[in-house]
C-alpha cells in the first residue's frame, strides 16, 4: 500500500540504520546516474499518512465542537479579553500578584516591566456564551463557544487579569486571608498578600482583560474559531 510501483525497490525501506548517508556515497550515486539523483517526496506515499491524519484532525475538531473533548489553553505574552454572559464556579480564590515581563520587552513602557495583576483561580467553572479574543496586531483571533444549550466548562482555570468586571455573587466568602493559606482552588499565592476565597461564585456579564496567563482545560461545545476585525 505504501509503495508506489514506480519507486525503486531500494528506496522502499529506510536505509540501514547504521549508515548516516555519507556525502561521498550519495555523490557517487549521483554521478553514476549521469544527472543528479536527489531525494524526493512521493505524493502517493505522503497521502498514505495525510489522509488518515486529516480525518483524525477533523474528528478532533468535531468532537471538540460538540463538547465531548476538553482542550487546554495556556496563552500569554499578550493581553487578551474573555467575556461571558454568566460564570458559575465552585472553589474560588483571588489574590494580587506582580507579573514580570520578559527582559527588554517592548510592552514594558515606563512600568519597569512589571504589571500588577489579580490572579483568580476557579476549580470548576461553567460559562455561558464564552468569547475570547487575542489582538494579533490589527486583527483579532476570536474564539466563541457555549452559545447553544450546552455550556462551556472549565477546570483549574487560572487567570491573571488587570481588569475584571461583572456582577458578582459569592457564597461563604473569606476576605483578608493571607494568599499563602488559600485552600479552595488548590493554588497558593505569595506570603503576606491580601486574598479572598469563596466556596462558590457567580458572575453575570463577566468581562476580563487578562494580562499574562490562563491555563486550564476547557470543554467548548459549539466551538467557533475565526479572525475578526473587532474583539469581544
Amino acid at each position, binding site marked *: 500500500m505504501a509503495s508506489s510501483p514506480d519507486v525503486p525497490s531500494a528506496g522502499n525501506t529506510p536505509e540501514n540504520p547504521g549508515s548516516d548517508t555519507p556525502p561521498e556515497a550519495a555523490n557517487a550515486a549521483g554521478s553514476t546516474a549521469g544527472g543528479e539523483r536527489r531525494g524526493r517526496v512521493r505524493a502517493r506515499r505522503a497521502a498514505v499518512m495525510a489522509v488518515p491524519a486529516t480525518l483524525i484532525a477533523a474528528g478532533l475538531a468535531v468532537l471538540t465542537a460538540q463538547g465531548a473533548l476538553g482542550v487546554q*489553553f495556556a*496563552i500569554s505574552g499578550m493581553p487578551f479579553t474573555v467575556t461571558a454572559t454568566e460564570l458559575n464556579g465552585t472553589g474560588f480564590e483571588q489574590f494580587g500578584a506582580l507579573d514580570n515581563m520578559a527582559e527588554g520587552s517592548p510592552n514594558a513602557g515606563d512600568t519597569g516591566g512589571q504589571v500588577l495583576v489579580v490572579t483568580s483561580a476557579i476549580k470548576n467553572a461553567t460559562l455561558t456564551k464564552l468569547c475570547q479574543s487575542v489582538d494579533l496586531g490589527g486583527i483579532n483571533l476570536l474564539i466563541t463557544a457555549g452559545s447553544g444549550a450546552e455550556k462551556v466548562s472549565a477546570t483549574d482555570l487560572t487567570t491573571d487579569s488587570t481588569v475584571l468586571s461583572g456582577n458578582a455573587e459569592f457564597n461563604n466568602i473569606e476576605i483578608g486571608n493571607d494568599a499563602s493559606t488559600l485552600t479552595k482552588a488548590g493554588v497558593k499565592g505569595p506570603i503576606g498578600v491580601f486574598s479572598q476565597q469563596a466556596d462558590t461564585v457567580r458572575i453575570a456579564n463577566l468581562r476580563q482583560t487578562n494580562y499574562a496567563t490562563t491555563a486550564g482545560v476547557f470543554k467548548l461545545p459549539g466551538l467557533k474559531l475565526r479572525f475578526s476585525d473587532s474583539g469581544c
Partner: protein
Amino acid sequence: MPDRPHRGPRLAFRGWRARRPFWGGLLLTLAGGEILLTEKASLKVVLHIGMQGLAGYLLPGLMVLLGLLILFNPSQRLFYSITGVLLSLGTWLTSNLGGFFLGLLLGVIGSCLAFGWLPDQEPRVSRRARRKRARAAARALTPDRAEGAA
C-alpha cells in the same frame, strides 16, 4: 530554487538538502516552535495545574526535537514522522488548539512530507515534458526526439 548548482556553500547545502526530507523536518520544527510561542505561560502556573499543563509544553517540545531528528538522522524518518504526526494531532487537546490550528497544520504537513520522502529518486520531469513524451510515443513518431526529452 536554483536549478543550476553553484560552487561553494550553496552547492554543499543543496547536496545536503537532497539527502534528507528537508522541508518535512523544517516544517515540523517550525510547527513545534509556533505552538510553544502561543503558550508563553509562566511555568509556575503550569506547575500549579499539574501534569496536564505540562503536557502542553511536552508535546510541542517533542515536535521540535523530532523535526531536528528528521533533519539530522533521516534514516529513521518513518518512526520520527509517525510519532510527529501523532504529537501534532495531540497538540489540539493540550496546547491552545494546536497553536490556534496553525502549528497543527504545519506539523501534519511536515510529518507527511517526511513520511512520503524517498532518497535517490529520478530527476523530476516537468509535466509538459512528460506529456510531450507521451504524445510522441502515442504517435510513434520521431522516437529520437522522445529519447531526447528523457
